[in-house]
């Protein structure tokens, strides 16, 4: 039973890491209806920029705001150069543009900062917490707990931003109906710029945590693959959905790998979350927390 709880808790904490990436997708989808294929690359870009700046002599606390500025500028530039010319174009055009953007950012990051694999130390050990191990016999990583705390703060800040600020309310209006929002004088392009900048900041947080865990390398772009089933399960436009979806996916994939994996030769962690998400979609096509769309025909 103790082992079961260990797997379960480890899975839930991994899920938090997936949620961090999923949040970036949700933000952009909420505001513009665009599925941002480049979100994983933005995570990589942010982490690589941060490490690159520290290699050029900046301290952690100087590199952090500097990278934040770079990510915000990147978000604004994407809005200006890629999205604005595509306003009123079909959603698929915007989606295709983000695919192109993904490859552009991958190449750009490697041209600017090189292809070497780097370590990233954020000062939190990824080792079991001694007193939990001694008292309960469970191995819970300090790093995972810090990541969960950061995710909680981030979600609280985003929730506040969306519900309590003027920009947040404008953003929700844009998400509900672009044309109606424009009609009441909400500056659509300004809102998109802000959302992309916020998504850049979220990518930085995700990049630092994933980079600290896996090293800063190209494979960070793959973390987006972990966020996809989270989005399918939780719903594309729901911040709580990204969190709950992440927890469900994280816990279920670990439990499946440990308890079902040996029956089928193992290695099911990669595809099991997608199967789970597909099963949920059969019953709730909008995901667990997505908005139910009813259209007259």
């Amino acid at each position, binding site marked *: 039973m103790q*082992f079961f709880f*260990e*797997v379960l808790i*480890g*899975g839930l904490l*991994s899920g938090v*890491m997936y949620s961090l990436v999923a949040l970036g997708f949700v933000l952009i989808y909420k505001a513009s209806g665009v599925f941002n294929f480049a979100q994983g690359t933005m995570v990589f870009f942010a982490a690589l920029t941060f490490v690159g700046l520290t290699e050029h002599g900046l301290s952690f606390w100087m590199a952090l705001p500097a990278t934040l500025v770079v990510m915000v500028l990147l978000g604004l530039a994407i809005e200006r150069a890629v999205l604005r010319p595509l306003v009123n174009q079909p959603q698929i055009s915007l989606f295709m543009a983000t695919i192109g953007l993904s490859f552009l950012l*991958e*190449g750009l990051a*490697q*041209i600017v900062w*090189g*292809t*070497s*694999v*780097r*370590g*990233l*130390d954020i000062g939190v050990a*990824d*080792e*079991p917490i001694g007193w939990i191990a001694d008292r309960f016999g469970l*191995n819970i*990583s300090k*790093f995972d707990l810090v990541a969960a705390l950061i995710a909680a703060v981030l979600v609280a800040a985003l929730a506040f931003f969306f519900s309590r600020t003027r920009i947040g309310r404008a953003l929700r209006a844009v998400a509900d109906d672009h044309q109606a929002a424009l009609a009441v004088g909400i500056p659509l392009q300004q809102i998109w710029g802000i959302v992309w900048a916020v998504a850049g900041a979220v990518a930085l947080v995700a990049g630092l945590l*994933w980079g600290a*865990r*896996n*090293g*800063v*390398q*190209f*494979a960070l*772009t*793959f*973390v987006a693959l*972990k966020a996809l089933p989270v989005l399918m399960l939780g719903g594309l436009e729901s911040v709580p959905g990204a969190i709950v979806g992440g927890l469900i996916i994280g816990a279920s*994939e*670990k*439990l499946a*790998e*440990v308890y079902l*994996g040996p029956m089928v*030769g*193992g*290695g*099911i*962690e*990669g*595809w099991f979350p997608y199967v789970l998400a597909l099963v949920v979609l059969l019953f709730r096509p909008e995901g667990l927390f997505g908005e139910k769309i009813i259209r007259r025909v």
Partner: protein
Amino acid sequence: MKLIQSLLLGVAAACAIGAAPAMSQQFIPILSYRIGPYAAGGSGYFGGAIDYFNLVNATGGINGVKLTWEECETEYNAARGVECYERLKKKNGGASTVEPLSTGIAYGLIDRVAQDKIPMTTFGYGLGASADGNVFRWVFPLGTTYWDQVAAMVAYLEQKEGGAAKLKGKKIAYLYHDSAYGKEPIGTLDALAAKDGFEALKIPITPPGTTQESVWLQVRQQKPDYVILWGFGVMNPVALKTAAKVGYPREKIIGVWWAGSEEDVIPAGSAAKGYVSAAFSAPGTSFPVMQDIKTKVYGAGNGNLEDKSRIGSIYHTRGVVYGILITEAIRNAQAKYGKGKLMTPEQVRWGLEHINLTDARIKELGATGMFPPVKTSCADHEGSGMVKFQVWDGSAFKPVTGFIAGDRALVRKLVEEAATKYAAEKKITPVDCSKEM
């Protein structure tokens, strides 16, 4: 600025090549990967090979014959690798040999190189059975196959335990990249487990392996005496960090050579300290050949690595060793077919079959201790099977053994069985090596 400069130089070089094809030079296509998920390894390895080729050219070529090469970016993608091969195989008078540094691309080329009669090297990887030159005439898994490498790992553990008999009843977990690469040595591992009486617990890790908690919790639950890590790319540092997280001692983890470079341990930070990996070439800049590269190639501004701190790293020196083996094969071919002449791919194939890098010859080449002796033949396209083991001390890999081999007789038996099966499936008539010169 440097980028623009490089682009201009590249365009100028391309124009020069276009204007006057390098027909009088020995052409080697380079199927490199300098961008994408495995760029760190690809750029180091192919950088090392090009640095050595430049050194050869700077010191007069091979009996006066200069080497020329052209790169094609594969991004480690099998389809793109095959496309690169097709694009380059007839260029500049034709390819002498090809090295894809990718099991996937190598699988895609095995039939093509046989048809085109271009020898392909798979230096330290690829299809284990291809060590049998009777069947695989055009493939050369030089140095070590995965099969010999897993056998050497078991030999290392036997040494560590104080003899083969001491492995009896032990449990060795085999954590592998769930792909053809990861599955390749399983048959050999099973045969060794049956022989030595240890239990081989096989646990696949879904690529790319960015999360491994469930796997390592299973490891902790199963309590294996050792873990063999058959990883690649991001899977390696994540494995080491997750092992630390669940409290599995890194000293008991032994990695394959794809898990034994600086790029595999640096991202894991302190979690990698004490981890042991296999290697079939040694890193460092103290070897005379590396010193020559530093002075004659980098000193002349022809070095391939932009980041000079990577000179002498594991991937870089491995690329240099590849360069040494290829030039030695061409030199052998010239000794038979005419010194100072351009060699055809068939002649280079003969040269690859007659590599005899003894300790004395390795010393002449300024590479003593950099790699083990290699002696290929018509039947044995591998030529060595030896690897050394190295421990990461937190800042560098330090050797813990010399070059050692596993049970080569057992591996050879498995190679021949698999090659015979392959020949039957593909309707290949094996050559009679006793009649080959």
